[in-house]
C-alpha cells in the first residue's frame, strides 16, 4: 500500500484539520483518515479526495474541536474573580464608591431626562404615515426694502390650482388656525379650540377616527367632527357605547347647529397640531368674502406628493403661483418645507429656514452630553487617583501571569458593573422624577419600555458610559512596571497627573460655561420681560368681547367704568403686544409701484393710547369729537420711515381701498416678541372691529375682576367668563425660552454639583496621600489655615484655568444666542466674573472641607506609623 505515492491527500485539508481538531485527538484521527484515504485510493481513486473532504467536514463537531480561547480552563474562574475583586474593592472603599456612584447616578439620570425631552422633540409630528412626502407651503413676502416676511398662511384659491394643475401632487389640504368656539348642548356649554379643515386633511394625516364613516366625515357642510375629549365631556365616559352620537348636534357660538359626523382621537402629545373639533373649511370660506382672494393669506396648506423626487420640480413651478394670479402687485413667492421639519425648523430669515426649536434641542443635547461626560470624568479621576492602593494588586496579578489586556478587562468589568448599577438606579429615579420634570418642561413624557428603542437606549448609555469611565484606568494601571507596583512606589507617568488635572479643568470649564449661560439667559429673559415696550402693559386685563358682547362695546364700557378701580378702558382688533394682521394693499402719497410693504393694521376704539400709555411723536390721536376721524389714520414711526415721509401729518393714505389722511405719528411700540424688529403699523379708528377690550385696573385687582365677571355674566350669559393679563400674555410668547432657561438653570447646578463631587474625592485622595507631609509641617509649626491653604491652592489654580478656558467659548456661544433677538441685553463682563467666583467659592469650600479635616488631625496620628 505504501507504494502508491502518486495521489496525496489534500494538504490544505489536513492543515485545516490540524487547526481545528483537539490536540489530544489529532494524531489518531488524522491517522484514521489517512488510512481510509489510502484504502479508498485502492478502490476508487477518483472519489477518495471528495470522501476525505466529506470526512473532514463531518469532523467539525463540538466533541472534536479544540478550545479556541487560549486560557480555557481559567477563563470563567478569572471572570468570577474580576467580579469578586470589584465587589471587595467597592466595599473596601465604601465612601469613594458611594461618591462615585452618586455622581454617576446623578449624571445618568439628568442625561436620561434631557434625552427623553430631546427625543420627544424629534418625535413631534413624525407619526403620520405619509409624513415623509407631505409638505407645508409657506409664503415669502418680499418687501421692497429687501426684507422677507415668511408666513404659513397662504391664499385659499391656491388649493384648487395645486389640485388641478399639478399631476405630481396626490392631495392638498387646508387647515385654518386654531380658533375658539362656544359649544352648547342643552344647558351645557364650553369653549373649545379647533380648526377648519378640508376633507383631504384626514387623508394626509393619520388622526384616528373612532366613530363615523372614514371616507367622508368632513364632506358634509352642516357637519363637524369632535374629539373624544369633547365626546366624553358631553356624552359621559361611556360615549363609545352609545350608538347615536353621530347625528346629534351642537350649537356653536350661539348661532349655527352642527351635526356630529364623526369622533376622532384627540391629537396626542407628539402632535404639534392640537384641535378638539374639525369643521369643513368650506364653511369658513363661505362666511368670509375676503378668503377666496389671491391677495389674502387665510389657510395653512399641506400637500402630499406622489413621489418625493418631484419635490424640486413642484417647488420651482409653484414659486410664482401667487404672483401669476395677482399680476405681480406684490412679490409673494411660495416655498415648500418638509412637513416633518416644520416643528423644529420654523424660523425664517430672508425667506429661508434659519432655525427654530432645533436650536434649543441642540443646546440641550449638548448639555446632556456634557453632564454625562462630567460624570464619566469623575469616575476616571477617582479610580486613577485611587490606583495607588491597587498597584500591588495589579503587580501581583502580573507576576502570576496576567496580561495587560487581562487587567484592562478587569477595570472595564469594574466600570461596567458600577455603570450598570448606576443606570438601574437612574431608571428608578427617572420614574420618580418624571412628573416633576414634566411640570418644568410642560410636556407629558413617559419612559416607555414597550418601545423597542428604550432598552437599546439604556444599553447604549451603559456601553458608552462604562467605556468612557473605564478607559483611562484600564489603560493606565496595567502600564505600571511590576517592580514598582509591588514595592508600592508607583510613579505615575508624568503625563497622567497632567491629564488628571486636565480633566478637572475640563469639568469645571463646562460647569462655568453652563453657569455663564444661565446668567446671561436669565438676564436676557429679565430684559425681555421688563423692557420698555413703548406701552404700559401692567395691570391691564384682556377681555375678548364674544357672543352677546360683540359689537356692544359702548354698553360694556359704560358698565365697566362704574366699577371702582376702573377709570379707563379701550378696545382693539387684537392684542397690541402680539399683533399680526397685515396688508400689502396700503397706498400712500408718493408711493411708487415698486414699493412693496406688508403693513400691520390695527383697529381701535377711543382711549387707546391713553389706556396703554403710548406716546405720540407728532400730530394727534383720534378724538371722539371729530367725526371725520373714522377715515383718518395714525401711523407709527417705522411706517413713516417706510413711506418716506419727513412730515407725515396730512398726507393721504389708503388701506383696503379706504382713503384717508394721516393725522398723527405714534412712537414705536413692540408688537411682537423681541426676536422680531418693530413692524410698520397703521392705526384705524373703527370700534366696530375692535373686539378685544383692554381694561386698566387701579387698586384692588381681585375685587375689580369679580365685578367685571358680574358685568360679563349679565351681558353675555352664554359664555364662560375668562380673561388674561396683558403682561402674562406677553410672557407666554417666550415660552420655549422660559422652558430652556429653566432646564439650563437646573442642569448647570447639577453639573457643578457633580464636578464638586469629583473635586471632593480628588482632594480627599491628595490629602490622604500627603498626610505625612502635613504631619511634618504641623510639627514644624504650620497652622491649620496654612495647611488648608496649601491643599486648596492647587485646585484653585485648576478652577482659574478652567475659567480662562471657558470664557471665550461662553462669550462666543452666548453672542450667537443673543443674536437671535433683535433687542438684547448687553453681555457684561460682570456675568463672567460672577460665574468664575461662584465656581471658585463652591470648589474652594469643597476642597477645604476635606483639607480642614486633614489639617486638624494630630500629627502624631499621621506620623507614628512606619
Amino acid at each position: 500500500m505504501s507504494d502508491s505515492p502518486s495521489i496525496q491527500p489534500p494538504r490544505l485539508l489536513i492543515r485545516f484539520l490540524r487547526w481545528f481538531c483537539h490536540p489530544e485527538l489529532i494524531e489518531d484521527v488524522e491517522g484514521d483518515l489517512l488510512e481510509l484515504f489510502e484504502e479508498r485510493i485502492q478502490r476508487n481513486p477518483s472519489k477518495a479526495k471528495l470522501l476525505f473532504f466529506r470526512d473532514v467536514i463531518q469532523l467539525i463537531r463540538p466533541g472534536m474541536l479544540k478550545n479556541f480561547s487560549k486560557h480555557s480552563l481559567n477563563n470563567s474562574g478569572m471572570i468570577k474573580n474580576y467580579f469578586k475583586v470589584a465587589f471587595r474593592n467597592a466595599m473596601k472603599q465604601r465612601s469613594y464608591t458611594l461618591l462615585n456612584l452618586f455622581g454617576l447616578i446623578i449624571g445618568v439620570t439628568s442625561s436620561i431626562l434631557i434625552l427623553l425631552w430631546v427625543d420627544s422633540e424629534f418625535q413631534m409630528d413624525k407619526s403620520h404615515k405619509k409624513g415623509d412626502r407631505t409638505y407645508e407651503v409657506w409664503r415669502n413676502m418680499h418687501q421692497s426694502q429687501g426684507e422677507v416676511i415668511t408666513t404659513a398662511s397662504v391664499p385659499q384659491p391656491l388649493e384648487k390650482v395645486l389640485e388641478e394643475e399639478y399631476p405630481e401632487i396626490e392631495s392638498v389640504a387646508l387647515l385654518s388656525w386654531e380658533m375658539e368656539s362656544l359649544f352648547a348642548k342643552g344647558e351645557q356649554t364650553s369653549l373649545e379650540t379647533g380648526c377648519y379643515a378640508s376633507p383631504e386633511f384626514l387623508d394626509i394625516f393619520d388622526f384616528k377616527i373612532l366613530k363615523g364613516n372614514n371616507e367622508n366625515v368632513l364632506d358634509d357642510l352642516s357637519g363637524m367632527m369632535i374629539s373624544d375629549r369633547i365626546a366624553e365631556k358631553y356624552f359621559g365616559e361611556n360615549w363609545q357605547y352609545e350608538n347615536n352620537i353621530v347625528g346629534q348636534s351642537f350649537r356653536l357660538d350661539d348661532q349655527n347647529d352642527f351635526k356630529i359626523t364623526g369622533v376622532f382621537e384627540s391629537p396626542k402629545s407628539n402632535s404639534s397640531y392640537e384641535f378638539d373639533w374639525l369643521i369643513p373649511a368650506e364653511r369658513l370660506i363661505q362666511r368670509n368674502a375676503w378668503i377666496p382672494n389671491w391677495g389674502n393669506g387665510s389657510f395653512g396648506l399641506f400637500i402630499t406628493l406622489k413621489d418625493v423626487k418631484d419635490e424640486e420640480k413642484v417647488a420651482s413651478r409653484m414659486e410664482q403661483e401667487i404672483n401669476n394670479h395677482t399680476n405681480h402687485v406684490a412679490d409673494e413667492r411660495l416655498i415648500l418645507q418638509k412637513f416633518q421639519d416644520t416643528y423644529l425648523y420654523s424660523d425664517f430669515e430672508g425667506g429661508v429656514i434659519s432655525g427654530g426649536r432645533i436650536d434649543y434641542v441642540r443646546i440641550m443635547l449638548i448639555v446632556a452630553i456634557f453632564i454625562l461626560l462630567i460624570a464619566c470624568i469623575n469616575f476616571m479621576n477617582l479610580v486613577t487617583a485611587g490606583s495607588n492602593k491597587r498597584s500591588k494588586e495589579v503587580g501581583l496579578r502580573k507576576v502570576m501571569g496576567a496580561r495587560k489586556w487581562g487587567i484592562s478587562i478587569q477595570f472595564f468589568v469594574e466600570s461596567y458593573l458600577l455603570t450598570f448599577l448606576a443606570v438601574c438606579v437612574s431608571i428608578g429615579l427617572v420614574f420618580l422624577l418624571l412628573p416633576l420634570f414634566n411640570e418644568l418642561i410642560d410636556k407629558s413624557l413617559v419612559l416607555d419600555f414597550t418601545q423597542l428603542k428604550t432598552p437599546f437606549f439604556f444599553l447604549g448609555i451603559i456601553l458608552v458610559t462604562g467605556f468612557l469611565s473605564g478607559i483611562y484606568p484600564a489603560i493606565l494601571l496595567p502600564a505600571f512596571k511590576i517592580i514598582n507596583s509591588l514595592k508600592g512606589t508607583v510613579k505615575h507617568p508624568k503625563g497622567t497627573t497632567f491629564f488628571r488635572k486636565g480633566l478637572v479643568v475640563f469639568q469645571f470649564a463646562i460647569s462655568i460655561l453652563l453657569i455663564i449661560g444661565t446668567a446671561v439667559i436669565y438676564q436676557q429673559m429679565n430684559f425681555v420681560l421688563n423692557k420698555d415696550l413703548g406701552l404700559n402693559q401692567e395691570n391691564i386685563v384682556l377681555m375678548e368681547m364674544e357672543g352677546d358682547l360683540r359689537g356692544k362695546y359702548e354698553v360694556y364700557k359704560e358698565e365697566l367704568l362704574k366699577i371702582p378701580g376702573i377709570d379707563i378702558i379701550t378696545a382693539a382688533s387684537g392684542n397690541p403686544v402680539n399683533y399680526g394682521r397685515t396688508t400689502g394693499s396700503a397706498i400712500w402719497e408718493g408711493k411708487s409701484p415698486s414699493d412693496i410693504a406688508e403693513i400691520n393694521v390695527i383697529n381701535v376704539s377711543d382711549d387707546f393710547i391713553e389706556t396703554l400709555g403710548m406716546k405720540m411723536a407728532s400730530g394727534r390721536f383720534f378724538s371722539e369729537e371729530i367725526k371725520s376721524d373714522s377715515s383718518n389714520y395714525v401711523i407709527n414711526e417705522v411706517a413713516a420711515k417706510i413711506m418716506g415721509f419727513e412730515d407725515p401729518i396730512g398726507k393721504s393714505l389708503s388701506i383696503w381701498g379706504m382713503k384717508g389722511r394721516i393725522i398723527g405719528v405714534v412712537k414705536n411700540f413692540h408688537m411682537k416678541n423681541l426676536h422680531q424688529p418693530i413692524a410698520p403699523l397703521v392705526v384705524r379708528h373703527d370700534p366696530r372691529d375692535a373686539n378685544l377690550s383692554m381694561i386698566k385696573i387701579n387698586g384692588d385687582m381681585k375685587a375689580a375682576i369679580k365685578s367685571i365677571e358680574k358685568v360679563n355674566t349679565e351681558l353675555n350669559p352664554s359664555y364662560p367668563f375668562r380673561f388674561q393679563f396683558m403682561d402674562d400674555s406677553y410672557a407666554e410668547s417666550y415660552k420655549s425660552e422660559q422652558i430652556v432657561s429653566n432646564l439650563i438653570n437646573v442642569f448647570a447646578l447639577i453639573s457643578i454639583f457633580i464636578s464638586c463631587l469629583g473635586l471632593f474625592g480628588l482632594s480627599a485622595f491628595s490629602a490622604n496621600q500627603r498626610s505625612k507631609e502635613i504631619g511634618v509641617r504641623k510639627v514644624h509649626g504650620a497652622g491649620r489655615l496654612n495647611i488648608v491653604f496649601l491643599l486648596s491652592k492647587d485646585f484653585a489654580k485648576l478652577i482659574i484655568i478652567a475659567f480662562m478656558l471657558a470664557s471665550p467659548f461662553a462669550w462666543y456661544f452666548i453672542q450667537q444666542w443673543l443674536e437671535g433677538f433683535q433687542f438684547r441685553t448687553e453681555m457684561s463682563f460682570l456675568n463672567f466674573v460672577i460665574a468664575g467666583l461662584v465656581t471658585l467659592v463652591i470648589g474652594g469650600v469643597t476642597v477645604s472641607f476635606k483639607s480642614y479635616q486633614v489639617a486638624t488631625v494630630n500629627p502624631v496620628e499621621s506620623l507614628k506609623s512606619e
Partner: protein
Amino acid sequence: MGKYSIGEFEEIVMLTIAILYDNAYGITIKEEIEKRMDRKVSVGAMRTALKRLENKGFLKSNFGEATAVRGGKRKRYFRITESGKQALDQVMETRKQLWEAIPSISFDFKFI
C-alpha cells in the same frame, strides 16, 4: 438506566469494540460496524461517540506502535472498561426486563 446511560449508537460501538478485542481502533471499528450492521458510519459520528464513551469511563484507550501505513501516525486502540461492561450489562438487563414485561397477546397478530 442511572449512571450507565448510553445511546443506541454508543451501544453498538461498544459491542463492536468488544468483538474486535485487541484490534479495535478507528478504522476497524468503523468497518466492522458497517459490515455487520449494514449501515454507513461517518468518521465524525464515530469519533464523537468514542470520545464521549471515553469521557464517561466506559472505554479506555492506548496508542499502539507507529506504522508507515498511516503516514506515521499511531493507532489508538480502545478497550472496554469494567464500568463499560456494567453499562452494557445494564442495557441488556433493562431490555430483557422490558421484553419479559410484554404480555404475549401484544405480539399476537392473528386478529389484526
